[in-house]
């Protein structure tokens, strides 16, 4: 597969502050890559560098095998969608869509054709004569996507495009962006801090922190085998339970609890080495009720707090003196103070070195 976007040894500094550090990334043609991270991790900055809106301090950016490091944004063959939509308020929807094409001095017939096509794809034809102020949030974001669409480019850049929409609309437009990607088969780079968006849309996710990529992988890899404790903690809601203890002779021991690690897939082929470690167990991977009988490890706990959310019920309890959360079915009826037996499958858990926080 040919690469669509390549980022080589990219550095970005604002004065003494290093925002991006020696960043390397290859994005395949037609791939949907999500840059995910908490605010201030450099994900939007990286996107702005790719777009050419920020000058890089060192390194190169290639788009479609062309070195575009010093090119103007409009010469890079990219379209961009912004969080605040950034529609030109004094122009109609049609004016917004055709602004870039007029700047590129395209013939009128071609402009009309492209605007029509984009409006059809995004179902905004009835809105073409309106001003942005007369549109709803969802419609505005469609126009913003349309403005990238008419440019007929290979690479789409999305900068948190759904963050300003309400929850229901966000879910709708998320599906629509995915459909758009399937139809157009463009390369898409999508910045978000919403892990649901990342998991549902991405072919691959890059988790960023402090200007560096922590892990690059498919949503399954990121969720199932996080490379370090930060990624494990960041992905999943409610977040992973962590217990600090020791690996001793093939078992993980914390307090009076011993978890056999026979089924665990160690990164080091040699298997477990005795050391101080942290075990991470996702709340949704803990079983209760009849399923406990088949589980490898059984733990008896007392329920401290119950949080019903409708589809699920979250239980707060204590395991080995540590705060521990369990996700149960929404139908289950438990009350605070009740005794509960939990079952854990060690093969679904994650082990991290206590010092380096890297996956074992």
């Amino acid at each position, binding site marked *: 597969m040919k690469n669509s976007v390549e980022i080589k040894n990219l550095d970005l500094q604002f004065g003494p502050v290093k925002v991006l550090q020696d960043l390397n990334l290859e994005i395949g043609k037609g791939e949907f890559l999500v840059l995910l991270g908490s605010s201030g991790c450099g994900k939007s900055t990286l996107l*702005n560098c790719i*777009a*050419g*809106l920020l000058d890089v301090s060192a390194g190169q950016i290639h788009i479609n095998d062309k070195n575009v490091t010093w090119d*103007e*944004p*409009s010469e890079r063959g*990219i*379209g*961009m969608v*912004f*969080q*605040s*939509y*950034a*529609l*030109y*308020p*004094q122009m109609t929807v049609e004016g917004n869509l055709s*602004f*870039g094409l007029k*700047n*590129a001095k395209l013939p009128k017939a071609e402009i009309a054709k492209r605007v029509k096509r984009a409006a059809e794809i995004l179902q905004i034809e009835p809105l073409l004569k309106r*001003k*942005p*102020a*007369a*549109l*709803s*949030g969802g419609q*505005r974001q469609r126009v913003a996507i349309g*403005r990238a669409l008419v*440019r007929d480019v290979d690479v789409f850049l999305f900068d948190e495009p759904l963050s*300003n929409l309400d929850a229901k609309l966000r879910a709708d437009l998320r599906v629509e962006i995915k459909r758009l990607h399937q139809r157009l088969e463009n390369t898409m780079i999508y910045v978000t801090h919403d892990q649901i968006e990342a998991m549902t849309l991405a072919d691959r996710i890059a988790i960023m922190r402090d200007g560096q990529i922590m892990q690059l992988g498919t949503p399954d890899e990121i969720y199932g085998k996080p490379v370090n404790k930060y990624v494990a903690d960041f992905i999943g809601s409610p977040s992973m339970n962590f217990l600090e203890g020791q690996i001793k002779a093939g078992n993980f021991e914390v307090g009076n609890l011993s978890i056999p690690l026979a089924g665990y897939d160690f990164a080091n082929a040699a298997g477990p080495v005795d050391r101080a470690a942290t075990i991470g167990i996702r709340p949704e991977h803990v079983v209760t009720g009849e399923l406990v009988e088949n589980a490898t490890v059984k733990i008896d706990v007392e329920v401290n707090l119950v949080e019903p959310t409708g589809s699920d019920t979250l239980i707060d309890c204590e395991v080995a003196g540590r705060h521990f959360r369990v996700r149960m079915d929404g139908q289950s009826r438990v009350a605070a103070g009740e005794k509960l037996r939990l079952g854990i499958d060690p093969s679904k858990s994650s082990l991290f070195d206590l010092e380096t926080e890297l996956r074992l």
Partner: protein
Amino acid sequence: MVDTSPVSLSGPHGPKPRKALSRRNIFLYGTLFVITVYYALPLYVMIVTSLKGMPEIRLGNVFSPPVEITFQPWVKAWSEACTGLTCNGLSTGFWNSVQITIPSVILSIIIASVNGYALANWRFKGADVFFTILIFGAFIPYQVMLYPIVIMLREIGLYGSVWGLVLVHTVFGMPILTLLFRNYFTSLPEELFKAARVDGAGFWGIYLRIMVPMSLPIFTVAMILQVTGIWNDFLFGVVYTGPETYPMTVSLNNIVNSTQGVKEYNVNMAATILTGLVPLVIYFVSGRLFVRGIAAGAVKG
């Protein structure tokens, strides 16, 4: 359905009744009334005096309304009052002021808005130094620069002409106007600027087609500031122009302060009102444009 019949209500309900003459209201409106009278009285005296003949003024009843209304003082102030040897009234000064104000306002606003736009959106090298120097210029007292500018204008051959004064006003308007425009452009959503760059618009394209159409309120503010500032200016006018090119404020001074003959208070009052009329009209006409939010709909709604 919840029963909402009004019969069940007893005790206080609905809007709270308010007394028209509470102690709070008396204080509030009393204070407002006193302040209004304080500010309106001089204007009243001016208008009343300007409509009286000289015999009536000599009676000394400053506040009494005119017994016999006459517009002669207004006509005299506009076209007949004497300053030195010429007796053209304020009319010459008025047209000089128009010739000075219009180009100064247009030039200074165009240059300052481009300055502000460049400083806000294109962070060029040395932008901060440039801006600091510009703002520093605003704090130097005018008197320090009066004479050096006389020499500079003489050297470029503009001393005593209307265009020399236009140049001075344009330059002196720069710091405050640039600051005004820079701050306004900074407050516009940055993503609009980024979107326009991705759309391939250049420096002037973004300025003319994105920024200016969104900036009507700030252009109005700048216009009001400049028109009133330049129209009311006396110091630069009297220093950098000659008798032929004196602006209206200088003519007014020459009429009012002329030492020969009788003090014609009615003419002086009429002349003063005439001079103040232009800024007054500008305030009334453009006040409405002031408040309009043009950027509505650009960002999240």
